[in-house]
C-alpha cells in the first residue's frame, strides 16, 4: 500500500497548542511521525537571558499557556533559594491554592479535549465551562485570566481579594457535585470507553526509556512518584492527600487518574483555605525592580505539574539578568521522543487522543 504524508495540526481541533505532527500513514496505520513544535512561542531560554529577573516575570508564564503558574513557581523558588528570601507563611498557602486550581483547570481542559477527537463535544463544553469559572477566580485574584504573573520571588504579588475564599469553595463544591456527571459524559460513557480502553498503551519500559513523569509514569509503574510528596515544596508536607496510581496505562487509565487527581486537588485547596494564616504575602525586593540582582550560583527547582516534573535549572552570575536558564519541560519526553518512536504503529485517528491523554504542551518542547 502506498505511504501518504499527513499533517496533524497546527490547525486541528484535536491538536494541543500550535504544534504539528508530520505523519506518514499506510492505510490508517501511522508508520513514521515526527513533531514540529514552535508554531507559537519559542526561544524562551535565550529570551530570558536578555531580560532582567523582574522582566522575566512577564515572559515565563508563556512557556505553558494552560498552566502558566508552574513556571512562575519554579522561577520564584529558584530565585528564593539563590537569594535566601523568606516566603511569608500565607504566601505559601496562596501559592498552593493557585497551583492546585491551575491543576484542576488543565485536567479539565485535557479531559474535555478528548471530546474533540472522539466527536463528543458535550463533555468538552461542560469541562470548559468549569474551567471558565476557575479563570474567573484567577481574574479576581491576579487580574488576568491566563497569564497571571502572580507568583513572584518572595511570595505572591498581591493578597487575596475580599470574599474570594467563598468563590473558591462554592466552585469546588459545585465541581464535586458534578464530578459523576463529568465522568458519565466522558470515560464512563461506553462509546468513549470503546475508543480509550486498551488503546494508546504506555508500558513501564517506555516510561523508563523516555523519562516520562507525572500522570504517565504513575499510571504505568504503580509508584506514587509525585514531587509534592517526594520533595515537598511550599507547604505540601502539611497537607493530607493521596497520589492515585495504576499499573496498566491505557488511555482510559490515564484519564481516570487525572480525574482522581481533581478530587485530590479539591481536598488540598480546602485544607489550604482552612490552614492559611493571616499576614503579609510578600518579602520585598531590595532596591528597586530595575536594579535587582540575584547572587551568583546555580539551582534546580522543580514542581509537580499536571504533566509531570517541571523544572528550571537557573544559573546566575550575580547580575540583573539570568546567565542561563534551562527548562525541563514535563511533556518533553513523550511529546518529542514519544511521537517519533511510539506514535508509529497507532491508528491515525488515535494520534490526537495520543496527545490528549499523554498531556503534551508544545512550548515546553521548543523552549
Amino acid at each position, binding site marked *: 500500500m502506498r505511504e501518504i504524508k499527513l499533517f496533524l495540526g497546527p490547525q486541528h481541533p484535536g491538536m494541543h497548542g500550535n504544534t504539528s505532527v508530520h505523519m506518514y500513514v499506510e492505510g490508517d496505520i501511522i508508520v513514521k511521525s515526527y513533531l514540529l513544535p514552535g508554531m507559537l512561542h519559542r526561544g524562551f531560554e535565550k529570551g530570558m537571558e536578555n*531580560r532582567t529577573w*523582574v*522582566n*522575566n*516575570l*512577564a*515572559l515565563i508564564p508563556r512557556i505553558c499557556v494552560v498552566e502558566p503558574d508552574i513556571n512562575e513557581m519554579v522561577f520564584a523558588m529558584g530565585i528564593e533559594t539563590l537569594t535566601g528570601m523568606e516566603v511569608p507563611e500565607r504566601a505559601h498557602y496562596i501559592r498552593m491554592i493557585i497551583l492546585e486550581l491551575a491543576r484542576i483547570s488543565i485536567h479539565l481542559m485535557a479531559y474535555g479535549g478528548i471530546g474533540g477527537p472522539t466527536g463528543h463535544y458535550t463533555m468538552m*463544553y*461542560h469541562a470548559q*465551562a468549569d474551567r471558565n469559572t476557575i479563570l*474567573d477566580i484567577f*481574574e*479576581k*485574584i*491576579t*487580574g*488576568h485570566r491566563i*497569564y497571571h*504573573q502572580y507568583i513572584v520571588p518572595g*511570595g*505572591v*504579588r*498581591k*493578597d487575596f*481579594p475580599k470574599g474570594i475564599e467563598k468563590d473558591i469553595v462554592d466552585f469546588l463544591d459545585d465541581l464535586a457535585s458534578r464530578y459523576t456527571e463529568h465522568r*458519565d459524559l466522558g470515560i*464512563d460513557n461506553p462509546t468513549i470507553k470503546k475508543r480509550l480502553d486498551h488503546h494508546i498503551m504506555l508500558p513501564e519500559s517506555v516510561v523508563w526509556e523516555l523519562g516520562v513523569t507525572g500522570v504517565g509514569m504513575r499510571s504505568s509503574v504503580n509508584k506514587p512518584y509525585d514531587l509534592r510528596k517526594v520533595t515537598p515544596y511550599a507547604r505540601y508536607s502539611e497537607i493530607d492527600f493521596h497520589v492515585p496510581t*495504576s499499573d*496498566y496505562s491505557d488511555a*482510559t*487509565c490515564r484519564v*481516570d487518574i487525572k480525574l482522581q487527581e481533581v478530587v485530590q486537588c479539591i481536598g488540598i485547596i480546602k485544607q489550604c483555605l482552612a490552614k492559611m494564616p493571616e499576614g*503579609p*504575602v*510578600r518579602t*520585598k*525586593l*531590595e*532596591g*528597586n*525592580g*530595575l*536594579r*535587582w*540582582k540575584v547572587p551568583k550560583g546555580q539551582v534546580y527547582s522543580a514542581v509537580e505539574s499536571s504533566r509531570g516534573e517541571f523544572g528550571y535549572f537557573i544559573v546566575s552570575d550575580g547580575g540583573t539578568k539570568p546567565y542561563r536558564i534551562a527548562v525541563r519541560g514535563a511533556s518533553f519526553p513523550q511529546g518529542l521522543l514519544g511521537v517519533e518512536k511510539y506514535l508509529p504503529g497507532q491508528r491515525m485517528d488515535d494520534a490526537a487522543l495520543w496527545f490528549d491523554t499523554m498531556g503534551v504542551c508544545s512550548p515546553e518542547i521548543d523552549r
Partner: protein
Amino acid sequence: MKKHFSAFRPLRLLKYLFIKPLSLPMEDIFENPREAADNYRGFHVNDWEKCIGCTTCADICPTEAIIMVDRCEIEETDGNFAKRPTIDYGRCCFCALCVDICTTGSLSMSKEYLFNSPEGNDYYLMPTEKFLGKEARMGYQKDEHSDLIELKRVPMTHLHDSERKDNFLEIVKGYSKEMAIHEAARCVECGICSKTCPANMNIPEYIRAIWEEDFEDAIEQIYKTNPLPGVCGRICTHLCETACSLTQRGEAIAIRWLKRYIVDNAPKDIYEKVVMEQVSAEVGGKVAVIGSGPAGLAAAYYLKTIGYSVDVFEQKSLAGGVMRYGIAKYRLPDEAIDQDIKFIEKIGVNIKVNTKVDAAMLVKFEKEYDAVFTGTGFFNGRKIPMPGHDHENVIAAMDFLPAARDYSRGLTDKIDIHENVIIIGGGNVAFDVSRTVLRLQFEKYGKTNITMTALESEDMLPADVEEVIEGKEEGLHYSFAHGPQEIVIKDGKIKGLTIKKVESIFDAEGKFSPAYVGDEVLLEGTQIFMAIGQSPGYDYLGDYETKVNINRGKLEVEANGQVKGVDWLFAGGDIISGPDVITAVANGHNAAIGIDEYLTNK
C-alpha cells in the same frame, strides 16, 4: 480496571429534565456587558497631575511598549519632566510591571478591555485619566506588596548624642560598602536630580557606578562637574534630594551620602589616576583666582584641566574659604577639605595662602594675568541693628566660627565662651554656631546652657531638619517663633535678650515685616551670637568698584560669569548668587568655561 454498571444507571439522566440549561444567554451582551474583576489589568490609566515623566515605566517594560513623548502643554519644573508615557498596545503584554514600579503611583490599569479599530495606529495610546473620552473604571493598582520600589532609605549611622558633646568628631559616620550598594540599588535613574542640581552633576551615572562597584567611573562622573566631592558629600544643600522622584511616595535617595561614600572609599591610586587624566596640555594663558572657597577652587580646577596656568590667592593660612572657616568641624572635618584640595593642587593649581589681595594687587593682576576670577564670598558677619548690638559680647557668626575652627584645630587657645549663651538665628549657620558653642561650653564648664531664638517656628526653620533634631538631642533650648527686641545691658554687662512672640513674618504683600503679639519675655544670658546672615567685602576692587554694578551686596555678572563692566574679571560663588556651596561650584565651573571662551576669542 473494568467497572460494571447497573442496568438502571441511565435512569439517573431523568434528573436533567428538571435542571436549567448551563449555557448563558447572550441577548443582552451589549446592554449589560461583562464586567471585569476589580483587580483587572486592562488598558492603562495615568494621572497627569501626579505623573512626573520619570521614564521608569518605560525602563521596566519587558516588551518595550512604552515610549515617552514630550508634551509642550506641561510646564517643566524642578521634579517634573514635560513628557508623559504612551503605550503601544501591539506590544503591551498587560503585565503591569510599569504600574508596580511607577515612582509616583500615577499609573494604574483600568477594567477597560474592549477596544476595536481597523487602524493599527489607534492602538498606540497616551493614557490619561480617561479612556476613549469616558471616565475610566479603575482596575489593577499597586499596593504595598506589589510595589517594586523600596521607599525607605538605608539609615545612616551617626555618633550617639552622648558621644558628641565633648569633641568635634564628625557626627555622620558614612555608609559601608553594603549600605551604599543597597542605597544605590534604589535609584531608578530618572535624572530629575541632575536637572535640579545647580552644578547639573551626573548623579544617576555615579550612583549607577556605585551599584556596579566601579569606583573609577564614579569618580570620573563626579569630577566632570564637581572637584569638591568630599566637601559636597558632607555639607551640600542637596536640592537633588528634594527633587528625587522617590520623594513622591517615600524617602529620597541619599545622594549626598553616596557621593561621600565614593570619596571616602575609592582606592587612592584609582582616584589619583582619574583626576590626573582630566588635565589637558598647556594652552598658554594665566589666570588669577582670588579666594580659595568652593567657587575659586572649582574655577581653578576646571581652568587647569583646560590647560591654563592658575594661581589661587587666599588671605588665610589654610585654603578652603568658608568651607574651612565658616562651617562647624563636626559637619565638615579638615581632612575632607584637605583631600579635595590635595587633588586640585596635584593637577598643578598653585595655591598661595596668607596672601590678601588688595586694590593695588588687583591692578597688577590686570597686567600679569590674562583673566581674573574672584570668589571672595560672604565672609563678614552681620548684626541686627537693635539696642545693645554693639556690645563686645554680641558676636556675629562669621566672626566667631573662624575663631572656633582655629581653636578646634589647635591654632589658637584663646576663645571666650560664657556660661549662659543666646543665639539669634534659625539657619544652618545658627546651628553651627550653637552646637560649636555647646561643645566649647561643655569643655569649659562641664555643662551647657544655650537658648536659640528665631522668627520662624520650629517646623518652618530654614535649617535642615537633622540640625534641629540633633541640636535638641545635644541639649539646645529653643525659643523659636519669637523676635528679638532688645539686648538688656546693666552696668556694662549683658543681662539677657527680650523677645516677643511672632504673629506673622511677612505682611499682606509678602514683604518682610514681622508682627508681634503678647508681652516681652526676657531670655537670660551674658553672651549673644547673631547668625542672621553674612555680607561680602569689596575693598580689593579699589577703583574698579565704580565700574561694576553691585546689587544688594551681589556683583552683577553675565551668564558666563563675566563681571559687567570689567571684561577680564569673572566672579562666582556667594558674591553673585548668595551662600551655597554647590551653587558656588557650579559658578566656578561656568566661569572657567566663560574665561576659556573669553581668552580664546580675545
